[in-house]
């Protein structure tokens, strides 16, 4: 597995208050692989993704990026946050351009490329809008362009479409598939929506509920590509896969709510 893009080896993560969120998680994501991480709310999906991003250091175990142990921030990764992460004081074009500017690209060139990216995510004439002037879906599009413009080798996405309505979610899913298919990168996609995970990914990883959450399932999705995130749901094979994964996930969800109640 040394050649994989991201590999987690028996990673355990504890928060400063002593809460052990994830225990001995093993996960290997190959280059060009689209992997979804599914589990009940609060199980530790974001925690695990943050470990892959280098935002949290594991208490035990190791994170390796293209075979090299990760120290500090993961410079090869782009991260799409669950919450709004755009700089509210910069307009859409400046938000998209910032990653290039930080890397020393002259501002004018950075803005030119930002406009190309805004067009790619379907926001051609929205460059001068500030985040508060954009809808939830539009903000996610800007955030996607902001991440992708730097051309990171690994993409980490934390429930990026979580707060969007069902219709927008599916449109965004297709946009993501198109962008990802253009130059397949390693992608870890966190979601609590199993159907979304199956429709988009090559593999679906299931986490147990916390504390001390573990990875309890790893399902290969053998649906053909290119896919349409909407149409694929009508495929009989989609239904089969969903049934078999759901059976396992349900047990965990019930356990999570049982504990909370």
């Amino acid at each position, binding site marked *: 597995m040394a050649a994989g893009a991201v590999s987690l080896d028996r990673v355990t993560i504890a928060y400063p208050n002593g809460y052990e969120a994830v225990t001995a998680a093993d996960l290997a994501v190959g280059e060009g692989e689209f992997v979804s991480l599914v589990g009940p709310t609060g199980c530790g999906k974001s925690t695990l993704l943050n470990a892959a*991003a280098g*935002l949290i250091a594991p208490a035990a175990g190791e994170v390796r990026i293209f075979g090299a142990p990760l120290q500090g*921030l993961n*410079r090869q*990764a*782009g*991260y799409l*946050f669950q*919450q*709004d*992460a*755009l*700089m*509210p*004081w*910069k*307009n859409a074009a400046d938000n998209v351009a*910032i*990653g290039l500017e*930080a*890397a020393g690209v002259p501002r004018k060139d950075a803005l030119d490329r930002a406009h190309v990216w805004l067009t790619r995510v379907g926001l051609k004439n929205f460059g001068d809008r*500030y*985040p*508060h*002037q954009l809808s939830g879906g539009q903000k996610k599009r800007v955030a996607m362009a*902001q*991440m992708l413009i*730097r051309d990171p080798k690994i993409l980490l996405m934390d429930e990026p479409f979580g707060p969007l309505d069902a219709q927008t979610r599916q449109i965004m899913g297709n946009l993501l598939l198109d962008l990802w298919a253009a130059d397949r990168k390693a992608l870890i996609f966190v979601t609590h929506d199993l159907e979304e995970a199956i429709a988009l990914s090559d593999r679906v990883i299931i986490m147990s509920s916390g504390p001390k959450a573990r990875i309890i399932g790893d399902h290969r999705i053998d649906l053909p590509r290119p896919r349409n995130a909407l149409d694929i749901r009508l495929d009989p094979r989609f239904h089969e896969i969903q049934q078999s994964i759901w059976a396992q996930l349900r047990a965990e969800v019930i356990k999570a709510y049982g504990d909370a109640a």
Partner: protein
Amino acid sequence: MIARPTLLSLQILVAVVLIGIWYIGSSVPIFGTYFLPKFFFSTPQDVFWRIVKMFSGTTIWKHIGITLTETMLAFVIGSVGGVVFGFWFARKPLVAAVFDPYIKMANALPRVVLAPIFMLWLGLGIWSKVALGVTLVFFIVFFNVYQGVKEVSPVVLANARMLGLNERQLFRHVYWPSALSWMFSSLHTSVGFALVGAVVGEYLGAAAGLGYLIHEAEGVFDVTGVFAGMSILAAFVLIVDAVVTQIEKALLVWRPEATQKN
């Protein structure tokens, strides 16, 4: 929302009623007595003609100019100091922890008691008034900038880090704009306090300025002069405030509130 013309006419109505009461009380005898004796309350028409007379000369402009200069200097110096120290304290928790009781103490001190000391140190010219204004402005800006840096959204910050921004770039693209937005949200207050510092300073001892003008009139029981000075001061404050509003609008376009007001 009330329509603008309606609002404006209601606002003017309030002024007309108040001045009307003042006029009747001071100029129309009711049962042989004046309800608002002229010696204590002057009359609107006297105050009006006094203002006209003041503006027919040139000295009033000198006084306004002095007060404006003091206000601006106090605002600029206090703001720069507040921004620098606000940043420094926010980024260095140890410094903040050590100085915390002293900052609180200094801020709790009524600034008026400092005025005589500043006059002793800096003389009766503009700098003692500027110093008084600075002590007021500094703390407002300081606390706001401190808060602005502290309260940067951790998600925005993590995102900026993931986008490859180094410490210097984080300062410029994240901490600085956040601190500025907090500072600008207190712009009205800090400009107001700069003005208070200038006028109170002038009032307590000066040879020029609007505060001095009012104080001088009080010294000879010239109530008309006091009211004329106060009216000019009030108009001055309104104009300064309107300018600040315009600056605020231009600088905070990215804020939801700023756009809704337009």
